[in-house]
């Protein structure tokens, strides 16, 4: 691969990564600044993380929400992996016309 090509490749990758990651960096800045600064569009992280966090915990039951999310995610991932591996294996090894139709209907849902 020529030097020129590799420079172009790196440039494209860097631009894509920057564009992908920028909104998340922006979110980080927003989390650590006061509301006024965020509305004005400040782009550097500040020092208000602890205060913002206290406000958040005061307004919502954060612990319960996180527990719910974790519980759902773990259980769903586990069960989905289990069921889908076996189902996929079954659909592929014992392949026939009827199972094809069934799989298409499942995909539609």
């Amino acid at each position, binding site marked *: 691969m020529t030097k020129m090509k590799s420079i172009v490749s790196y440039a494209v*990758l860097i631009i894509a990564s920057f564009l992908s990651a920028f909104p998340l960096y922006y979110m980080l800045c927003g989390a650590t600044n006061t509301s006024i600064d*965020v509305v004005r*569009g400040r782009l550097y992280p500040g020092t208000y993380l602890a205060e913002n966090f206290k406000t958040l915990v005061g307004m919502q039951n954060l612990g319960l929400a996180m527990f719910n999310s974790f519980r759902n995610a773990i259980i769903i991932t586990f069960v989905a992996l289990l069921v889908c591996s076996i189902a996929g294996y079954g659909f592929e090894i014992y392949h026939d016309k009827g199972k094809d139709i069934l799989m298409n209907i499942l995909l539609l849902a």
Partner: protein
Amino acid sequence: MAQALLLSFRKTGGTFTGLSNYARVFQDKTFQQCLFNTFFYFLIQVPIMLVLALILAQLLNSPKIRGKGIFRTLIFLPCATSLVSYSMIFKSLFAPDGVVNRVLTGIGLSSVDWFQSTWPARWVIVIALIWRWTGYNMVFYLAGLQNIDYSVYEASYIDGGATPFKQFTKITIPLLKPTILMTAIMSTSGTLQLFDESMNLTAGGPGKSTMTLAHYIYNISFVETPKFNYAAALSVCILVMVAILSAIQMKVGDKRD
């Protein structure tokens, strides 16, 4: 699903009324607007996203790039965000005095009123979708690319003097067909049923100009006085559309050997 089908044949109150709900669907102006919006997102966003993902995967697959892990992680990161939180971020980024407009005025173009005009609002949704799902599809293509033996490329170069472009079109794409088919079907089905962005980012857009079909169904069912039967009819319509498009894509792409 079967029950939804049954629901769609009745009027509110339970009386069986045949296909009148479907006739109403065809005359509904809002439905036509949402149909246009949804298909606009579908036709513009899916090709751009899949092509971008393919290019990025191809770049990341080359053995001469260093730091592949970092690039891969950064590009995949948007998929890990929650839909509601990223809608909030994009709303604030595209606000009249947000970062995007500041960059635009910085380089000399005029700032765009992203959420108050119909077409810019639609482009915000397209951009948001591309941002979020390119990394996801890129990972699929990377996995598919890594299954292709490097010796195939070497053979084509030595035996046939194939240029990189020819290698890409005649070797890579045919070998990636199953993966491309899978991502195309998933993206089609996902984009046609788009709901979260329309609800959270633009709340339907100025007037109804960015509302998607699913958002419209939600409004009918839960926001206005519920007309579940009509909503069920609409849902069946979406199902039929997705089924037809998927069937077309499978006919074009699938081979079972």
